[in-house]
């Protein structure tokens, strides 16, 4: 293949930037959607029904899967290349350069944590919802009870009544926060939309976006955990 998106460093980075940007947009949508669960189980389940095994939700899911695969495969290609470029002989002493964020140097590790969290999350929700419908079913057994494939609210309730899930999801969100605190401004730089005036603004935007995403997701997990503990609702 003789295309700059595949055979040049800047082109490969553009693929990272665009796939990352699309994932960020999706994740903002997902986070907003989750927030409805805090207010109304009915409203949340209505969204779940819309996103069942119908053609547009399936196309969307396939698109997202493709984005994750592309982002992940390119991350591996770029990182292996970078490891080689660093050379066989490493520095004996390394000091942190001033102004360089920890996240920016650990994007692959953070990304892999995000991916593991994603697989766990798919097994908790997607496998009990859209997958069940794809396979022609309408409900599945979760923790000894039958839950309908469109009853996302019940799945949330069940999943986050377990403390270990709460801990795992929070670790996942922290890793995502770090990944995006760098990724969200880096994607502009990679695409060429940045300069000295805009760096402070873009970095501020990255912190705001990643923090809102973190708080939005964490709120649902924590609220449902607390509800499960006091048993009042």
């Amino acid at each position, binding site marked *: 293949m003789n295309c700059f998106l595949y055979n*040049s460093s800047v082109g490969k*980075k553009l693929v990272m930037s665009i796939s990352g940007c699309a994932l960020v947009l999706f994740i903002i949508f997902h986070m907003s959607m989750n927030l409805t669960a805090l207010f109304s189980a009915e409203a949340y389940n209505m969204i779940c029904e819309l996103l069942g095994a119908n053609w547009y939700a399936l196309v969307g899911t396939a698109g997202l899967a493709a984005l994750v695969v592309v982002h992940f495969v390119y991350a591996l290609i*770029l990182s292996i290349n970078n490891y080689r*470029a*660093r*050379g066989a002989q490493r520095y004996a002493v390394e000091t942190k*350069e001033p102004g360089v964020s920890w996240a920016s*140097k650990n994007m692959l590790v953070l990304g892999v944590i995000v991916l593991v969290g994603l697989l766990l999350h798919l097994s908790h929700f997607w496998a009990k919802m859209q997958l069940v419908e794809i396979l022609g079913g309408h409900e599945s057994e979760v923790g000894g009870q039958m839950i309908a494939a469109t009853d996302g609210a019940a799945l949330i309730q069940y999943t986050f009544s377990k403390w270990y899930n709460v801990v795992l999801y929070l670790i996942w969100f922290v890793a995502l926060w770090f990944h995006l605190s760098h990724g969200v401004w880096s994607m502009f730089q*990679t695409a*060429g939309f940045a300069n000295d005036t805009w760096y402070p603004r873009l970095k501020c935007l990255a912190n705001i976006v990643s923090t809102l995403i973190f708080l939005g997701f964490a709120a649902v997990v924590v609220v449902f955990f607390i509800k499960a503990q006091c048993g009042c609702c």
Partner: protein
Amino acid sequence: MNFTLKIWRQKDAKSKGAFETYKVTDISADTSFLEMLDILNNNLVHEGKDPVAFDHDCREGICGMCSLHINGLAHGPGQNATTCQIYMRKFKDGDTITIEPWRSAAFPVIKDLVVNRGAYDQILQAGGYVSVRTNSVPDANAIPIPKADADESMDAAACVGCGACAATCKNGSAMLFVAARVSSLAKLPQGRVEGARRAKAMVAKMDELGFGNCTNTGACQAECPKGISIAHIARLNREFLAAKLQD
């Protein structure tokens, strides 16, 4: 002042190197880092030993020859300074100082602390120039250039090609160097004409020579002795992507 030096010694490109420890004593605080190494070498020669090979030339921060990774930082402690501009007062009496050569797959060690930075020359030869004579000073003034553009071009042109950017980068990326060269010419009418060809040719050469992919850590700009901003990398990305999309 007295120092313990842990210096990378390597006979030639093929040999395996190792750290050796030396002591230097009675060094004045106003000695420059390279003069301190001169004093060490003087002692070594008197003892009949092989002096430490290291790169240097102008010793006033303009040629880019001096290198060295000192206590984990390219060009040692202090920002916007080359190694020849670092003085021993930056260190504490009795310190142990670790001195390593630039480490990057594209900069192989030739001997001790000297590395081959010819890869940067090859990138320059791939397109870091203006192909035709654009005449000398009086004629150049005949073309009005906005002050802001001229300033940005000059800021980028301050690059001395020292290699600290690739040596510091965890990805071994040469982007800051390439960006500085592309940017300094792209901002001037004489260089603008060949902008697209230049960006493509220099990036292609950089990739071919085995430099890594920039992940925007910003370590290069922190360690660049000339304070070149990664804003030039953003411009290089723009230049390159626009050129490719027009192909």
